[in-house]
């Protein structure tokens, strides 16, 4: 595709144009403003004393020596939180167990009260004139810990006798949830001709946004109001939680500003201890309080992702068609339930287990388990990568066990009629799974694979190919639906379109860009709709004083939901402008046509451009203000009527060097159906980034704790982030079925790569190595161990 500068469009930037991102000039020239770039007069610096133990009772905390250190302004602990009646951090999605009981949410104070439950848990905060002084003083705090036995492993934490994290949650179990029809699924298995089973580990990941979390809290004693600058993906939700649950301040006395944010991947959805403490402490000390995470703090305390143990079985009939699917998953929650943690392994996971396939019966059980590790919550894809990995691994394994071609096995089980009601809540509105499979197979040159494999074998290399025909549910989400499933909030989005008298436009959105390119994509929509140049459109977001309310950005929702709200507001703007244009043109409103940025009297050449109508709206000279209010500003709330269902097919081809265990991804093909695409260049970038993270999960990344609950992968010396030379060139393509439930036909693209890629890579690895047992991350050492075991078995057989 050819990239074009946004400024090159003197008139309209149409939907579908690959314009360069408006925001990139700011970012690439160092003019972006991130939370840490802000400094407030008189600001102090916070440093958090963190638990060195995974599980310990705190007998006492002696801060007297530390308090006397140079530059110390204050030192606060859980006792001070209690004194100010500051509430716990909460999990905002209520899940009920099979027996009807509500989930068991362990107390999660922003600063520990009597107990620490993971390495990095927050014990105290030192607030000082400088960060160095704060660190010096923190080293002088004397904490008397009574170390407790540690439940570090997901596999054993539910066992009788395992150390207990929360009194409220016996067997460290937060909930035992189920979805689907157990009896129907049992019946399906009873008549199965073949049952394919699979045990999987979905490895724990650290999110690693480029910008670490940061916060500045400031209290204005005159207004009795707080301002919190912070790295959040959803400033209004942060404010709501801080007001309604934590009790820092009422909403109208708390302003949350999320300025430029350098990546989130989900990890910045949540309300954490540090941001909460900065806001609260700013009133206690009477000065602004600033905190910026160091990378090692990010590893310790940002919510991690994934971390499932799953056993699954697929029931097939004599013709290789799926009869039923049953799944039991244990999901690691870490030490506390993070903000949306409970929804990830449940309604964002179990509901996706039908994949692209016609499955008559599904039954899924999920146990949510506390361990002495950092909290686990949404990370790019959030539940859906875990579902896709499971479905696509067992489909591949089933095809191999049946001796069928993996593509054709998938194809014959594809859903082909829409809308399609799955047995696990979701109703797919549209899709064409064969189209993306066919296109991907053609791009990946499946026909040529056997020859490539033979050629590689001559060089002593093992080639394999793997498919991942994924589906995800995006456009989160119909509010009444998620409300009935336990969500504490609605998931609509808001927009306000403000047309200025000179005809340029500000759009206020409740979604939040932290790398997605909304300033360009959203402006493109407005430009196309109003017929004005893209540089006459500004997108405003990330400030609760500017945008009235919104739900933020995650779950690939900003296009499907956020832009739909903008469309609704634009509809209202156009309707009003049409009335005003009729007066300006002295014509009947019914005769006014709006096209190419001009209001025209049908059948004549009498026309008035949009900007002139805007000016007319504000001068209000030529229409009766008793009938039409002056001004041109409209707002809208859009609540989706269904999820959207992006889907596609990724194909990975690998070559393994059995001598070293090194895997080379020689070809990666991604064909995605995102519905209507606004800006293909931005979409392609989202796909690239997602695949890089998916390959990271498959081959490189894995958070490791030892049996004492110490984080082994606490820095980039041991946690392998994908680098440019770890990922191949990506061959990407699109197919399109319009989403039928939103006005633009958009499905969403932000997570697809991270959802699809791990299964594609591991299916290729298992093909290359001839074993289904290839764990993630499939590091060179792991792969070599597999190759070596196979060689030893061959030697023994000879």
């Amino acid at each position: 595709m050819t990239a074009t500068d946004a400024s090159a469009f003197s008139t309209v930037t149409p939907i579908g144009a690959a314009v360069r991102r408006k925001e990139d000039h700011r970012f690439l020239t160092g003019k972006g403003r991130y939370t840490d770039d802000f400094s407030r007069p008189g600001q102090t610096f916070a440093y958090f004393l963190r638990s060195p133990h995974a599980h310990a009772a705190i007998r006492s905390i002696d801060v007297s020596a530390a308090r006397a250190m140079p530059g110390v302004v204050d030192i606060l602990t859980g006792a001070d939180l209690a004194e100010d009646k500051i509430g716990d951090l909460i999990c905002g999605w209520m899940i009920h167990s099979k027996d009807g009981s509500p989930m068991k949410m362990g107390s999660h104070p922003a600063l520990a009260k009597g107990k620490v439950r993971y390495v990095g848990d927050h014990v105290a905060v030192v607030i000082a004139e400088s960060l160095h002084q704060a660190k010096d003083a923190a080293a002088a705090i004397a904490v008397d810990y009574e170390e407790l036995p540690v439940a570090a492993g997901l596999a054993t934490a539910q066992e009788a006798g395992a150390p207990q994290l929360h009194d409220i949650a016996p067997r460290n179990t937060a909930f035992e949830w189920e979805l689907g029809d157990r009896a129907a699924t049992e019946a399906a298995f009873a008549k199965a001709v073949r049952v394919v089973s699979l045990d999987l580990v979905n490895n724990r990941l650290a999110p690693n946004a480029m910008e670490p979390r940061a916060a500045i809290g400031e209290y204005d004693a005159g207004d009795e109001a707080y301002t919190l600058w912070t790295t959040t993906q959803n400033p209004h939700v942060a404010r709501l939680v801080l007001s309604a649950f934590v009790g820092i301040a009422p909403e109208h006395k708390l302003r949350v500003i999320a300025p430029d944010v350098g990546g989130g991947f989900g990890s910045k959805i949540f309300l954490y201890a540090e941001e909460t403490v900065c806001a609260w402490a700013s009133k206690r000390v009477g000065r602004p309080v600033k905190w910026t995470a160091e990378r090692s703090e990010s590893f310790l305390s940002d919510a991690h992702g994934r971390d499932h143990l799953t056993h699954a079985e697929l029931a097939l009939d004599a013709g290789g068609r799926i009869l039923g699917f049953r799944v039991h998953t244990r999901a690691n929650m870490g030490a506390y339930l993070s903000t949306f943690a409970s929804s990830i392994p449940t309604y964002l996971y179990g509901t996706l287990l039908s994949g692209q396939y016609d499955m008559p019966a599904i039954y899924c059980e999920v146990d949510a388990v506390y361990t002495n590790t950092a909290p686990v919550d949404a990370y790019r894809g959030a539940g859906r990568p875990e579902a896709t990995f499971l479905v696509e691994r067992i489909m591949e394994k089933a095809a191999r066990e049946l001796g069928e071609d993996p593509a054709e096995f998938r194809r014959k089980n594809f859903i082909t009629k829409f809308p399609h009601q799955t047995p696990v809540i979701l109703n797919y509105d549209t899709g064409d799974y064969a189209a993306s499979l066919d296109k991907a197979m053609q791009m990946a040159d499946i026909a040529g694979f056997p020859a490539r494999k033979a050629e590689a074998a001559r060089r002593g290399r093992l080639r394999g190919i793997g498919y991942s025909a994924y589906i995800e549910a995006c456009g989160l989400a119909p509010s009444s639906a998620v409300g009935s499933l336990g969500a504490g909030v609605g998931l609509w989005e808001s927009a306000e379109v403000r047309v200025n008298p000179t005809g340029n436009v500000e759009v206020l959105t409740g979604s939040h860009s932290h790398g997605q390119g909304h300033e360009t994509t959203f402006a493109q929509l407005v430009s196309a709709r109003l017929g004005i140049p893209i540089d006459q459109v500004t997108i405003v977001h990330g400030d609760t004083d500017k945008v009235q309310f919104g739900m933020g950005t995650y779950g690939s929702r900003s296009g499907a939901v956020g832009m739909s709200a903008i469309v609704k507001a634009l509809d209202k703007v156009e309707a009003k402008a049409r009335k005003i244009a009729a007066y300006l043109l002295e014509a009947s409103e019914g005769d006014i046509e709006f096209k190419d940025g001009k209001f025209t009297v049908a059948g004549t050449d009498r026309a008035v451009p949009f900007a002139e109508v805007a000016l007319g709206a504000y001068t209000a000279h030529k229409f009766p203000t008793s009938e039409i209010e002056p001004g041109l500003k409209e707002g809208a709330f859009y609540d989706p009527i269904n999820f959207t269902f992006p889907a596609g097919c990724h194909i990975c081809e690998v070559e393994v060097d059995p001598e070293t265990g090194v895997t080379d991804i020689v070809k990666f093909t991604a064909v995605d159906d995102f519905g209507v695409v606004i800006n293909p260049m931005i979409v392609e970038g989202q796909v690239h980034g997602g695949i890089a993270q998916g390959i990271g999960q498959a081959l490189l990344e894995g958070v490791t704790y030892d049996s004492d609950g110490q984080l082994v992968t606490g820095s980039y010396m041991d946690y392998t982030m994908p680098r440019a030379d770890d990922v191949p060139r990506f061959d990407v393509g699109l197919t399109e079925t319009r989403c039928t439930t939103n006005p633009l036909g958009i499905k969403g693209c932000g997570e697809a790569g991270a959802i699809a890629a791990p299964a594609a890579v591991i299916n290729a690895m298992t093909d290359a190595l001839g074993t289904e047992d290839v764990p993630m991350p499939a590091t060179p050492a792991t792969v070599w161990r597999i190759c070596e075991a196979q060689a030893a078995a061959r030697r023994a057989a000879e």
Partner: protein
Amino acid sequence: MYSFHYRRPTALNEALAVLHADSEAKMLAGGQTLIPTLKQRLAQPTALVDLSRIAGLSGIQKTAEGVTIGAMTHHADVARSPIVREVIPALADLAGQIGDAAVRNRGTLGGSLANNDPTADYPAAVLALNAVVSTDHRSIPADAYFQGLFETALEEGEIIVAVEFPQVDKAAYAKFRNPASRYAMAGVFVAKTAAEVRVAVTGAGQSGVFLWEEAGDVLASDFSPAAVDKLALDPSDLMSDLHGSAEYRAQLVKVMTKRAVASIA
């Protein structure tokens, strides 16, 4: 980082005087390990003695025996030196594989050798090439210089001035990188002279760089990858960690040795 005094002497004697007067002072020779250590508050020296402005500590000279490289010469300068490329091209190749571009522009030969990180690259070249480490008051042969993890023959306050690398018939370096840190998990430098073959291994040994003498002996009579194929390195003295077992490292050492030999056989 804790507070410290910063000194930047212009003469060797001046640096020695500071270091001998203050046993808690540390030399700064590029700082690619030391600065991150300080930033994490893992070291608290009283003073840093920056060696970068001392005359005569950097530069590359061709000698009758080979090439002499000043201790404060940056990796990038070794990598692109026409002299090194001509006399011992494998040494330039090795320097060009250290860290990333930023590390190569700041890190130095002497800094790497004084630190003697078990996963550093230069120790393999120094040991395989049988180089001589010259300090402010003596010369130390490679066989005597490396004494274990982060341990060397250097005395307190002793400053490396230069390293003398003898020319050899053939040499090559093959490295397998740790996927996360990109340090060597198995770095093998093979050097062949008329008299012997020396195979030095970094990144894998529990006690740092070591000579794989068995491989050297075999290669002295049959300089081919096939000769190495028959060997098995005992893993009992090799490192084992998150990134690979001792057995895996033994395999990597063997494969890297084969690949180094193959590149010059």
